[in-house]
């Protein structure tokens, strides 16, 4: 499943970049993180408990930074294994300065296998979309915090939900 989107932050590119490069802050962005270990500057490991309404899905995820062009481009691979599921995520983003703020163009290719797949695409796609939205909203918050908590993202100011803010396509 491929997802992509555009997002805008009312913060300088370095701020956003620093957050996205700081394992500790990444841990704060990801849903249901129970433990997060930095193995080296390119490899992290996390144990997460993704909350689904019917019960949580436990996964251990290995992150590997594949490419990096400070301060604008980064590509990451995340391999997750859980009892019911197997996840492979390749995601990348490009930051550019846009009238005082920062624009982020992001892409993600998510593959999910294992018994969880038997729940059907009609369920998995929205769940994946939803987790992505949680991450992006959390990123908004982190950026806002880094900016001193005062300024929040444009999206939030206009009181729009991330779902409306995002434009993305999900295809098989």
């Amino acid at each position, binding site marked *: 499943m491929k997802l992509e989107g555009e997002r805008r932050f009312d913060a300088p590119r370095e701020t956003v970049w620093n957050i996205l490069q700081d394992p500790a802050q990444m841990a704060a962005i990801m849903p249901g993180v129970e433990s997060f270990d930095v193995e080296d500057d390119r490899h992290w490991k996390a144990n997460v408990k993704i909350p689904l309404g019917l019960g949580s899905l436990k996964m251990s995820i290995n992150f590997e930074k594949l490419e990096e062009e400070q301060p604008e481009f980064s590509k990451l691979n995340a391999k997750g294994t859980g*009892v019911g599921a*197997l996840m492979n995520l390749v995601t990348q983003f490009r930051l550019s300065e846009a009238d005082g703020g920062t624009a982020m163009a992001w892409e993600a290719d998510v*593959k999910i*296998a294992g*018994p969880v*797949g*038997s729940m*059907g*695409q009609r369920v998995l796609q929205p769940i994946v979309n939803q987790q992505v939205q949680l991450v992006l909203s959390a990123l908004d918050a982190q950026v806002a915090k880094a900016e001193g908590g005062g300024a929040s993202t444009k999206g939030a100011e206009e009181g729009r939900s991330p779902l409306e803010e995002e434009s993305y396509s999900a295809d*098989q």
Partner: protein
Amino acid sequence: MSETTVTPDRPITVEETETAPGFIGVNVPRKEDRRLVQGEGVFVDDVKRHGMAYVHFVRSPYAHAAITRIDVSKAVALEGVYGTLLGEEVAAETDPFFQIAPPPAGELKDYALAVGKVRHVGEPVVAVAAATRELARDAADLVEVDYEPLEAVVDTEHAADPGVAQLHDEAPSNTIWQGNFDYGDYDAALAEADKVVRIKRLHFHRFSSTPLETSGAVVEYNRGTGQWTIHSNNQFPGFAIIMMGPALKVGMDKLRFVSQDIGGGFGNKICTHVQLVALCLLARKLKRAVNWTEWRTDQHTANSHGNERVFLDVEVPVRSDGTMLGFKARMIDDCGAFTRYEPLGCIIWAQVTPGVYRWRNVRVDFSQVCTNKSPCGPNRGYSRMQHLWFTERVIDIVAEQLGLDPVEIRKRNYIRADEMPYETPNGCVYDSGDYARCLDDALKLIDYGSIETRRRDAESRGKLLGVGIGSTLDSGTNNFGQSTIVNPELQFSGNNEVATVKLDIFGEIVVTLGTTPQGQSHETTAAQVVADLLQVEPDDVTVRAGHDSYWNSHAGFSGTYASQFAVTGLGAVKGATEMLREEILKIGAAVLGAESTEEVELGGGFVKRKDNPEAALPFMACGAIVNANNAVLPLELRDITLNCRYVYVPPHQLPDTERKYGNLTLTYANQIHACVVEVDPETGVYDIVDYGAVDDCGIRINPQIVEGQVQGATAQSIGAATHETFVYDEDGNLLTPNFYDYHVPHALDMPPMKTSSVESASPFTPLGAKGMGEGGGAGLSAVAAALQNALQGAGRPIVTSSSNPYHRVWELLQNPDESRSLVSVDER
């Protein structure tokens, strides 16, 4: 024990059937039912043994990947876990399964568990055994397997293209088998044609009959005798033993197959020998009985699917009057990740090369490829269903292109009743049948005359009505000699089945069969035949339930598959019963002081003197004398055992492997179906509003049972035509792994089904009967044809797939020209 094996010589002649009018042809209530309606049947998961372990397979989440690490330590540490089995142990203790394919594809290695590499999602990688079902599953979750994913091969048409990832390192490509079939004179036919209709691509999709009882087994190992007892629902023990003996490096008598009740098979339970070997190893390793029950999701992801097939560059030479001279096509069959029964599918279709049509000139380039999908295996109508759907699509597309009436063009091309027995261009002999009459009957069932009125009525409701016709040839009693056409080195030919019939010490008539019924009512129909021959009631006949290869009723091809019980099974029953009758008459004549058996007859459980019915010897006395009081018998009668075994062997001969020519099967039951659909043009949603099925399987031993088979097989093909499909994504994940997304018809989905029958006796079989049960495939053709007919008023799209769920119909409505661009006509 007295034994006879009889092989009728060619030329085949009509056999005398001595069975007097009696129970044959009567709807005798089923012997099986009493236990089954009370929940007292014994299905494989009902079998329990002391200290039995429950087995759960750790299965691959990847379609194609190298296994880099397996760690079972956490699993075995769990309390209640008895042990595990890994691929490396399997590779060390067994030989790879015997391959039917010739080299080089025949070099591929297939083991009971994945060794080094996984080739489809759901492939068993590790087996875990524990004290309860739940614990086994828990332990399986603790097994750690690391994979290095490889490119997944999922596209049938391009699986063998250069540069595509290779499934089996031992085989040089993903092509399992390729052969050219050239019959008649195709080039002459092409030259003679007034028109040539071309079809770029047709697709027959993956599905399976998904028997409601999944596969399973309880396996015990006797350390003293080194013998395994395999309680399973495998439906072809003869084949399983041939596969398992060499793999386990043991003689066949070390593998005892036992089954009582089997919850549906439809061919899907033929290839379970793979898991059974893993269970044999575990039972021996753990020194305890092991139970394996496949779950539904496992069955969908890793049990045998029906073969997927594409038909490319189809060419049909036609005379302007609609007479079709034959066809040419390139066919690619997709057998999935392993060749468990394949590449037999590459020849089985040839049993019905021209379908029900008088097509004399055929040229087919047939190949089979492997892909990273569940392995295929026989599925009700195995390999013929795909081909017959193709022939029916061809005739309806030709009719559409040339503006000919679908009924007329069929009648013009059908093989005629007066041409029976009919030899096809490849040497198969259709024994009997009257297709035109069956078609007329089918059209009557759906009141064909009123179609145009109904079409207008539907239009007034905003619906598009369409009518379609389909056919099947249910070819039964395989000649396994056809396997030599795919691999001349093979030592398989002919066919056989066994029955023993005995008269016991208390006068009890006991029948044992070599078959493994899964609902086909063998106990009942066998009793009908025996009752007629011995002049008793079916209730007087005990037919042992199920199968046990340790009964002496087992031959190399024993099992229940390929529509043959009415011929091979009942042929054996008839033979054995006739032997027993002869022995009973001899005893009777001797005891009653008759000069010869001519002077005595059977009746009501007695042997009687014809001249004096008062002088009668009860069967009980016969049984007692031979079994417990035989000193009273004259010496010349001491060889009588009243325990008669008969092996029925059909009159098959070896085919010509060079020309791929010969009679590949004995009987040809046929079915003609007619179907009426109503399509909602706004959504593509459609209903089957009328349905008629006409069956001709020769003499029907028990009409009610035959009709039940027709109804069931039809329901399966309607399900397959509408919603049942195994769909994979580009990574090889199965998207329909359970009954949520794999929608099988329920009671509300079924259309009103009307059936009738024609009885064209087979001249080649002991009872004039033909094997049947696989004839439902006609529904796939009828639905496709009805949809194409309904959409005539909506851009005239061409139906090119056997799978037509709503979204595909909507796509046809959205873009009719896309499908039309696949067909063309050359005027000559």
